[in-house]
């Protein structure tokens, strides 16, 4: 990174962190810049790597089949015209129909059946038993068709303990993740900008 780039990055980092003291114009300017850059970058990448080679170039070279996605895409944008906005339901229906058709069997297999299979197949080991109890207790905690009384109550309670362990572990990993980001910024400020630590 050039010296100018380093200075701009460092000043923007400080502007963002200034929010920790209180909200201020420097923070807001940096925030708006980030949002604008992100949208602009995503747009350019989409045009350069998707729209241009995948639609414009084939259309110009005579691939008539590409007219279908062009028309469907255009119908999506017609939403902006209130009188014709209902046309956008057609491409939306295509997206929802194709999306559901593709994703429902895949999700059912990967997120339900394979997970259930693994839970049952490990049930003979100690860890497997602990896991199986946790799965059943947690699922029963979310069983709302019957009041949680009698036998259901202690089982659901066990489910909450399992969930607390999960929340604790997730919180710990989240802290780890956020601190890693802070370390990255601090290392940049102390290393690339102030040259106080080696990079």
């Amino acid at each position: 990174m050039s010296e100018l780039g380093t200075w701009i990055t460092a000043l923007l980092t400080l502007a963002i962190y200034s929010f920790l003291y209180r909200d201020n114009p420097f923070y807001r300017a940096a925030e708006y810049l980030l949002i604008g850059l992100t949208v602009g970058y995503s747009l350019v990448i989409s045009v350069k790597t998707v729209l241009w080679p995948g639609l414009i170039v084939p259309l110009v070279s005579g691939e008539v089949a590409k007219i279908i996605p062009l028309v469907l895409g255009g119908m999506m944008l017609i939403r902006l015209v209130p009188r014709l906005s209902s046309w956008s339901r057609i491409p939306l229906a295509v997206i929802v129909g194709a999306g559901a058709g593709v994703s429902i069997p895949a999700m059912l297999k990967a997120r339900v059946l394979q997970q259930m299979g693994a839970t049952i197949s490990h049930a003979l080991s100690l860890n497997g038993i602990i896991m199986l109890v946790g799965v059943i207790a947690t699922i029963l905690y979310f069983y709302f068709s019957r009041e949680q009384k009698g036998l259901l109550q202690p089982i659901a309670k066990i489910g909450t303990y399992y969930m607390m362990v999960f929340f604790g572990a997730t919180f710990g990993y989240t802290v780890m993740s956020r601190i890693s980001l802070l370390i990255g910024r601090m290392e940049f400020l102390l290393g690339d900008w102030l040259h106080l630590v080696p990079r």
Partner: protein
Amino acid sequence: MKFDRRFIFILIVLAVMIPLLFPIDLPVAITDETRAVYDRINVLDSNSVILMSFDHEASSLPEVRPLAEAVLTHCFQRDVKTVGLALFAEGTAIGYDILNDVAARYGKMYGIDYVYLGYRPQYSAAILGMGESIRGVFPADYDDTPYDSIPLLSGVRNYDDIDLVISVADGSLPTYWVEYAQARYGQKIIAALAAVMVTAYTPYVDAGQIDGLLGGLKGAAEYEKLLGQPAAATRRMDAQSLAHLSIAVLIVIGNIIAFAVRRGKRITEEGRS
């Protein structure tokens, strides 16, 4: 009692800054999960092709870059052919940069030892499409070189020719790799994740749907240790550990104060009655 939380921010900044300025080299213990990923890659050779997908945004770079660099270093050390791509627009240029950077350190040739295919939107369609034909999803690479002109890709048609997919992610993209590449095509997958996602993917590892999992800066530091090449993650682990210690101490102190205040209120109320 009112406490200005900005003192906590200062404490955390100091806990991060001091070990960066004065390293103390705290030990890093290697976990079985990281060793499993290392062993999985260590059996690959110059006949192997991996597909590394940069499924992350720019905001998580301090965490995912060390992960990607550690794994790529291992792959290039073993002369494994590497195909890079991105399923998040924001990760596109970052992935290209990381891949070129690590490849240059090992004198790897673009198009022969590694290639970068760039970005495709609609990740589920892209992942499914590559199961049929990678060329169909990426007719050209990031630099617009036609797929058929790239020597590395001459024998790479679909997942049958990919030994391993490595998803470097900070979100839910590995789920789609599991659903569409693993469940449907039996593709082996490794997830190199930002720490915040680790608990979400541990069940997939236990179920054998993901072959291995590297988690956060700690995972990267462990990997660097296994490689015998301490780098960015190792350098940052002192700060990570001290920041965690500070937060744990703050949580304990906060709870002690909360109990003391609650007890004081109860005694006061009992005195009044």
